[in-house]
């Protein structure tokens, strides 16, 4: 995935009200593992991946409120990021499918959207 120097989190992540500016930074050569690094608190970061190679059939549907908040005009400009909780091993590493971070790559506005859908888990084991 592409790096983005400044992302404006227009609605803070629950638990992190004070952090609204993040950078998306690659942690490996092919851009599979990335981090969202807070520009407001230098020790805060979240590991993220795109769902693609891990959760094939994951297709989050955003509500009107979130589409308007992010100013999205097409699905193509939305970058979906899943927040990871790294475990002791790959097998115990989980991704949050309930609340992906959606970035509008055109205007760099982002939000952690909540999909209240019982098919999604807050801690889904990574499928590799």
């Amino acid at each position, binding site marked *: 995935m592409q790096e983005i120097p400044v992302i404006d989190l227009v609605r803070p992540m629950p638990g992190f009200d004070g952090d609204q500016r993040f950078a998306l930074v690659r942690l490996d050569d092919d851009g599979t593992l990335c981090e969202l690094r807070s520009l407001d608190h230098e020790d*805060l970061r*979240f590991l993220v991946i795109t769902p693609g190679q891990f959760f094939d059939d994951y297709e989050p549907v955003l509500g009107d409120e979130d589409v308007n908040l992010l100013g999205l005009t097409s699905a193509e400009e939305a970058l979906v990021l899943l*927040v990871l909780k790294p475990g002791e091993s*790959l097998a115990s590493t989980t991704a*949050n499918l309930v609340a992906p971070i959606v970035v509008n790559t055109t205007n760099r506005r982002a939000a952690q959207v909540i999909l209240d859908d019982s098919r999604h888990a*807050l801690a889904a084991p990574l499928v*590799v």
Partner: protein
Amino acid sequence: MLVLSRKAGESVLVGDDVVITILEVRGDVVRVGIDAPRSVAVQRAELIAQLESSNREAASPSEAAVASLAKALRTSR
């Protein structure tokens, strides 16, 4: 906090366009219908609490955990 007593079938109006209706009361479960414009987000409070706790657990993993995950992902492909 405003506290109201309502019976099944009765409603409360919040603002101009949000209607909360008590649909059914059975034992300790109350079914509530919420009629709101699509622009108003309606979330279960416990889901926000669960998300907050999940975010806190995910925040700022150690360098060792990041390195180990990066390596595991690399070798899994």
